């Protein structure tokens, strides 16, 4: 026996047992690395310099604008983008297998990563409060707008961090690059909105309009906003969890049920706002409904087909429910994803139909066709396989190819001046949109024909899903066999004395 064996190590009691192990790990890691501390000190040094610049004659407007630009970069850029290494680092260091063998679920792994980063955003936001008060003392600051702006920033940071963490399991460089561009493009409007809200007169009128609303409408707006953000965070984290989950686990069914409920709630909210307030009010529900439907499309249509019966077992077990019907929408894999996506895609189109019906003229047929093209576009990569190993990579590759073709077509038409050629873009939904944009005088014709042709893509995706379905049936049969075995094992063996 080694003498060291008799010595004791000082037990670790820095974090409570109630905290998730993953959160504890990430917080310990975060506290030990110098990156966050150094970045925080640098950030505050810049802010102090900025406040100090008012002493040397820099206008408060300029200071306010720079303050918010720095805050936006920190909260929507610097902190969330660190999430992009969250799962990739586990994959690179070969530690994900170890985590799989513990009782930590894939979702808790992703949740832990997000919580650690979001707590840094929270810390950063709290550290901004004294500067807001100080600037208020200097004048030129409306404190309510600034606080609301900060809350927007925090929620945006939560969403952006979740998106970066969720997608961080992607190791293909090209896809990672595209995701950074896509997420940055998605965050830019939010940054612009927050900046306008706190610094421009438009923000002031927006706030006044909001405060003039009846209390129930204000409450509905706030609940809706928080609800969409919460769902968005959940969606991205669940997406990340399903990407790293072992093939025996089903992370898809719950995610699909939550998504269906969230989108249905948003549809109901939109319908209520459209009928009770106005179609303009309904647009506040339509926009997120549309974005979330497309995001769900990207997820649902890129899931690998299940290979193990354990993933279909939870649904097969539900004997009282129409199992096979439910499974058509809720089993993991792109096959059932096609069917569920079509159901989800009906929701924004329904809301749009009601909105246009309530106030005819506010939305025209072209807008309807454009939205239809957007909703059909995610189905094209189901039919075109340029990467047979990874459906997610394939989805992005095919989508980018469509965008590239659209750009080429636009350049060609622009260079030759032959806008009539824009009609050739009708072969896919995305190129249809480019074609409609180029041939503006005939856009409704191009769009109408494009939607018609796009429906063929949808039909082809359904046909492919039906063709693959026997594989799901095999898993169902195996799962039923598992249930039978369980039943046999649970029932007591017949007594040899019984006749």
């Amino acid at each position, binding site marked *: *026996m*080694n003498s*060291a*064996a008799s*010595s*004791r*190590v000082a*037990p*670790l009691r820095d974090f409570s*047992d109630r905290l998730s*192990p*993953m959160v*504890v*790990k990430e917080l*310990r*890691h975060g506290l*030990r*690395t110098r990156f966050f501390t150094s970045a925080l000190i640098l950030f505050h040094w810049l802010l102090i310099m900025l406040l100090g610049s008012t002493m040397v004659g820099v206008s408060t407007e300029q200071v306010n604008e720079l303050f918010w630009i720095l805050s936006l970069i920190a909260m929507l850029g610097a902190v969330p983008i660190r999430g992009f290494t969250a799962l990739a680092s586990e994959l690179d*260091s*070969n*530690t994900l*297998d*170890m*985590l*799989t*063998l*513990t*009782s*930590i679920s894939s979702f808790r792994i992703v949740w832990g990563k997000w919580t650690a980063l979001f707590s840094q955003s929270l810390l950063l936001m709290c550290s901004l409060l004294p500067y807001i008060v100080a600037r208020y003392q200097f004048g030129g600051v409306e404190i309510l707008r600034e606080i609301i702006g900060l809350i927007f920033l925090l929620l945006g940071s939560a969403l952006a961090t979740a998106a970066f963490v969720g997608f961080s399991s992607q190791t293909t460089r090209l896809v990672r690059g595209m995701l950074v561009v896509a997420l940055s493009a998605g965050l830019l409007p939010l940054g612009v909105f927050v900046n306008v809200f706190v610094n421009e007169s438009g923000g002031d009128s927006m706030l006044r309009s909001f405060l003039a609303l009846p209390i129930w409408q204000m409450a509905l707006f706030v609940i809706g906003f928080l609800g969409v953000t919460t769902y968005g965070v959940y969606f991205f984290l669940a997406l990340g969890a399903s990407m790293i989950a*072992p*093939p*025996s686990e089903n992370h898809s069914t719950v995610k699909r049920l939550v998504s269906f409920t969230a989108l249905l709630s948003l549809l109901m909210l939109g319908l209520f706002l459209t009928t009770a307030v106005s179609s303009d009010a309904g647009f506040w529900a339509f926009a997120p409904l549309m974005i979330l439907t497309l995001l769900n499309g990207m997820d649902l249509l890129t899931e690998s087909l299940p*290979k*193990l*019966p*354990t993933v279909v077992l939870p649904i097969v077990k539900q004997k009282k429910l129409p199992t096979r019907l439910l499974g058509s929408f809720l089993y993991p894999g792109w096959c059932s994803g096609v069917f569920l996506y079509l159901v989800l895609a009906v929701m924004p189109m329904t809301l749009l139909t009601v909105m246009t019906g309530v106030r005819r003229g506010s939305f025209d047929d072209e807008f309807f066709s454009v939205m239809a093209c957007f909703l059909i576009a995610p189905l094209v990569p189901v039919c075109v396989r340029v990467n047979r190993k990874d459906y997610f990579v394939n989805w992005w590759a095919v989508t980018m190819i469509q965008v590239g073709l659209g750009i080429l077509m636009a350049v060609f038409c622009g260079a030759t001046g032959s806008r009539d050629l824009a009609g050739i873009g009708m072969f896919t939904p995305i190129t249809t949109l480019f074609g409609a944009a180029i041939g503006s005088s005939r856009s409704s014709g191009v769009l109408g024909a494009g939607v018609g042709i796009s429906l063929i893509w949808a039909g082809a995706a359904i046909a492919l899903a039906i063709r693959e379905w026997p594989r799901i049936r095999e898993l169902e049969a195996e799962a039923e066999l*598992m249930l039978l*075995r*369980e*039943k*046999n*094992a*649970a029932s007591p063996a017949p007594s040899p004395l019984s006749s």
Partner: protein
Amino acid sequence: MHMTAPHSSHAAEIDRSQPAIVVDNLRRSFGDLRAVNGVSFSIEHGKVVGFVGANGAGKTTTMRILATLDHPDGGRASVGGHNVVHYPTKVRRLLGWMPDAFGTYDHMTVLEYLDFYARALGFKGEERVRRIQEVMDFTDLTPLADRMSNKMSKGQTQRLCLGRALLHDPQILIMDEPAAGLDPRARVELKQLIRILASEGKTILISSHILSELGEMCDSLLFIDKGAIVHHGDADTMRRSGSVEETLVTVQVSGDPAKLVEWVLTAQNVKLLEEARHGARLRIDSNDEQIIAGVLKRMILDGLPVIDFHREERRLEDAFIDMLGQIDKGTLGTPPPLPPQSEKLSSS
């Protein structure tokens, strides 16, 4: 290092009425590559089994499937009576997994590393503290508690990996190349730890390239090649099996060794391999013990002053290489039948 393995109240109960590990016609392909192609074997409780095969033979894939980290395309595998595909969670509670490539975390000490995994395995409060201490004592990691987990030697890292695998006191251990890259001292330490675990009744499936060590540690060995089991048995059987019909002996005589050389030239079934200072190295064209004994008897009867007659032990490495050669030539017979498999229909 403690001479007994630590036991935990967290340890999952195991059904000992069924073999610890059963693999039946397991298949797994990656594209066109058939990594595992109909592997079958079974391991009884408390046995230490070596898994031998060249790189790419299918060892790691088989072990990963057993550890529920990969899934088979066909066939069946069960650990502790639980099908690894149908009941992965139950399997995970029973087994400890040591991968060939073990990852640690930056900015995390050995103690924090074990604390994290202990939390992840459901240990709470004082029980967690006690369990970590036990595992650190067993693997001799206590002096390294505050060392960064990614700044340790390969041997220390492997001990940490073993410590993590033992936290929940698994009854079955699957170790993929645990001795790879270790210096001789670290290898001896690891071997000692494995021996202690084996003596306490744990079932261990261990793959290694260091066949001589496997021979010493293991109750039996499984040879895998191109995704299929080509031989199994204990180390002695393995040394004999697949070998060519010959025995190498070193003979020393008193006085002039030329007498021995002359005798060999006239002897049947014996050939001179090389002359030595006090004797010679000979090859007897048989591995039959009666014939070998007959050669020695004839030497003595013919008046040779034999002072040492040493039969060279055939190394496992030689046996392995011979076996691969015979597989390439297609002259290796089918492996002996496996023990009967008896996985009952079970819900657990």
